[in-house]
């Protein structure tokens, strides 16, 4: 009898499970344990939780965080919905341009809008009179900067939600005499409601867990993300810091559960037989609206660029490049940018292999149902874990004496692994979606032709998924380039990434230099993004024969 249990797939999938268990579940478990320990590692039960509940500043920070995140979500959706609606439901000109402009904030760290706002509306700001005596530092500034930073995510999700629509529903409604308003409320809005829930929970999550913006603009307004940092780095109280992290984790998990639920609903909305809606309205109003938003988005970036190129705002507007001489402002100098480049390139390279490989194993291998469920579940976990919480878990897990991986602590490798794990879910989802679209019988055909699974993987699966693979790589690169939250706990003087250097420079008052480093990150992200577009175009041209 020929035996059938195949070791190779089981080993591979087991390897993936082990990786995620060690580098994701392990740190999170360590964080949970820390919640019940005092400063010296003694078990104190619920002591840290009582400390959290009885500290007015921590309860206040929770309330502030929820307020900020809710306000940001409301305003971002209100601004993004008409923008996405214009892009998908009108025949307005310049759609590609507006689509691109809406994505511009993604190229910079969230610190960039915060710094630009300081120069626009701060105490010496260009437009400080608009504020009518209100201070930018506090909820107002945080919300404005957050709306700018997370506008792209909302537009992306809403554009997708609004672009899948069955034209026949509209034709049927017209035939039954429904006017444009009734069609909007009976077809468009119900069709987009799950997209709205998705966008809302993503923006809410981002706004809640963002660390850079409240660091720059928070003033005396504490939020959870800054409190985690304060407790851990400032007060060295890891136990209470972990509880604060947990307080951050809960609403985020809840929001993502809502997101997951609505994403599942959205899929079922459109059948394969639907006819795509083709907009005909000229959309003049939308051009004006999108133009205005575009000017604001670009204006904020331009402000950052401007202040980084002048001598001393607002007294000396003489152009200069001295703000880019980072050695004067931060001991890491240009080295931090080098670290960020290595981190981003490494995350793009290893993260793409990790997420695509993991998704392939869970989607295309036969059998091993239990192991697949484990890997899938672990792969989705990072979505609900704010970067700060993960970073904190990494400290506790890898800095624990006796952990054989202790040597990783303080190296660039741990930054790389942490970033890969932090961004794992999006890569996994993108890969899984692309893989699901492939004919499920490719593997069966290959097996019947006695061709190894590896050969079909490299000759068929990877070439067919190349656009998705590039998307994953570029997402990982740009996000790793701009991320602050997870790495802020893990860097050492030698491995400090640029985003952390920006934060340090802002704290030491050299804001123009911080803006300059933001612009360096922005430019390099933009260049990589442009390269991606060129490569993708070349690829599409080369494969046009069969992509059809």
């Amino acid at each position, binding site marked *: *009898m*020929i*035996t*059938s249990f*195949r070791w190779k797939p089981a080993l591979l999938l087991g390897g993936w499970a082990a990786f995620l268990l060690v580098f994701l579940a392990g740190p999170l478990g360590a964080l949970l344990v820390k919640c019940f320990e005092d400063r010296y590692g003694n078990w104190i039960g619920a002591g840290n939780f009582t400390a959290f509940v009885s500290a007015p500043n921590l309860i206040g920070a929770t309330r502030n965080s929820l307020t900020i995140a809710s306000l940001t979500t409301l305003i971002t959706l209100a601004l993004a919905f008409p923008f996405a609606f214009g892009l998908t439901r009108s025949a307005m000109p310049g759609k590609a341009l507006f689509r691109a402009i809406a994505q511009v904030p993604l190229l910079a760290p969230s610190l960039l809008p915060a710094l630009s706002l300081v120069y626009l509306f701060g105490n010496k700001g260009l437009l400080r009179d608009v504020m009518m005596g209100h201070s930018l530092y506090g909820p107002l500034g945080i919300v404005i900067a957050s709306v700018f930073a997370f506008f792209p995510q909302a537009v992306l999700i809403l554009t997708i939600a609004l672009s899948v629509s069955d034209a026949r529903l509209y034709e049927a409604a017209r035939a039954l005499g429904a006017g444009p308003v009734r069609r909007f409320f009976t077809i468009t809005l119900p069709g987009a409601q799950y997209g709205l829930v998705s966008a809302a929970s993503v923006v809410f999550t981002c706004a809640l867990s963002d660390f850079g913006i409240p660091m720059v603009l928070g003033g005396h307004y504490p939020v959870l993300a800054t409190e985690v940092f304060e407790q851990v780095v400032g007060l060295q109280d890891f136990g209470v810091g972990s509880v604060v992290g947990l307080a951050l984790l809960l609403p985020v998990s809840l929001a993502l559960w809502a997101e997951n639920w609505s994403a599942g609903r959205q899929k079922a909305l459109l059948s394969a037989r639907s006819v795509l809606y083709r907009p005909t309205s000229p959309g003049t109003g939308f051009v004006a609206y999108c133009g205005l938003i575009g000017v604001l988005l670009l204006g904020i970036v331009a402000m950052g660029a401007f202040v980084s190129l002048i001598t001393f705002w607002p007294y000396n507007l003489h152009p200069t490049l001295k703000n880019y001489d980072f050695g004067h402002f931060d001991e890491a100098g240009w080295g931090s940018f080098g670290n960020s480049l290595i981190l981003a390139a490494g995350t793009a390279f290893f993260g793409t292999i990790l997420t695509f490989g993991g998704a392939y194993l869970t989607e295309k291998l*036969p*059998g091993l149902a239990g192991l697949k469920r484990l890997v899938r579940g672990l792969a989705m976990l990072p979505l609900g874990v704010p970067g700060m919480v993960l970073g904190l878990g990494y400290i506790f897990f890898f800095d624990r004496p006796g952990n054989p991986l202790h040597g990783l602590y303080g190296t660039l490798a741990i930054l790389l692994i942490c970033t890969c794990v932090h961004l794992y879910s999006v890569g996994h989802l993108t890969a899984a979606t692309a893989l699901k679209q492939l*004919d499920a*019988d*490719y593997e*069966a*055909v*290959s*097996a*019947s*032709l*006695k*061709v*190894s699974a590896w050969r079909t993987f490299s*000759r*068929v699966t990877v*070439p*067919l998924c190349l656009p998705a693979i590039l998307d994953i790589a570029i997402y990982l690169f740009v996000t790793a380039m701009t991320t602050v939250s997870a790495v802020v706990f893990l860097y050492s003087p030698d491995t400090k990434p640029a985003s952390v250097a920006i934060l340090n420079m802002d704290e030491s008052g050299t804001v123009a230099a911080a803006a300059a480093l933001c612009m360096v990150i922005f430019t390099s992200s933009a260049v990589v993004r442009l390269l991606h577009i060129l490569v993708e175009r070349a690829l599409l041209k080369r*494969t046009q*024969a*069969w*992509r*059809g």
Partner: protein
Amino acid sequence: MAYLSLTNIEKSYGQFRALDGVSLDMEEGEFVCFLGPSGCGKTSLLRIIAGLDRQSAGTVEIAGKDCSNAPPEQRDYGIVFQSYALFPNMTVARNVAYGLRSRDEGRVAEMLDLVGLPDLGDRYPGQLSGGQQQRIALARALAPSPRLLLLDEPLSALDARVRLTLRRQIRALHDRLGLTTIMVTHDQEEALTLADRIVVMNHGHIEQVATPAEIYARPASLFVAGFVGAMNILPATATGRGSVRLAGLELAGGQGFAEGEAVSLCWRPEDLTIDAAGELEALVESVEFLGPFHRATLRAGDLGCFAIDVGAERMRDLGLSGGSAVRIGLPVDRLRIFAGHPS
């Protein structure tokens, strides 16, 4: 010695039993069709033979070798799916060569010739019609010279005319290459015209295994009678003395049924006759034109509706139309009787 031998194959998905103890022997060179409604287990059975799914119990023997637990690549077969599953990023020639050890141009050309598409080697699958793609899938499956060919509804995504030509081509290939072929289909016409033997399946078990003529003329169960070909199924009662009672008539047949037992009487529409001396009186409800013949729907009292086929010439003589009263001959030699009434 059977070429393919399935013994007590079972397959469960949780509580659902997709296959419930299926046993089947196939001779070398046979063309067998698995026929049944969707969900009857025919595709599950094919995938178990292919090793793509694992049976919950039972054994699979191919060419005298126990393959019950062998992975697909250790079994000798070629397979063609309904979706074709051609690799879109490879040319037709590379697709066909995919299972060959070396890139054997001669073999590829030979296979393309075999399926009648010698000039398409440089095209991509996306540039071909559905029928052409399916023939390439066939060429790819046959290139490594398997002795067993598995076809999973290979024609159901194609339009009627292409289906007809491809059907003949598949049978011709089977004969020419001396293959042993299993084809899964829900199209009874396909099964009747192609197969040496048909395996009719329902609810995870085999209802009947027989030649097409046998299945058509002597269905082994009420399910087969109703599933293959047009059939009038009339509810009747056994008398217990070798006859059945149908709407006040007593007809010979039904030996072995107890008195009062519910039975179903089955005649094909072409077996009933319009005959002045016929036993049953009926009214014509409607007449449907079907080309070479007409199918009349009749109603006879509480018997309900049944159909009868009338040839074109006879139709002209009779001049039937809605409302005509006719007498129907019920030939006892063509009658099949099964226990129970159709559900």
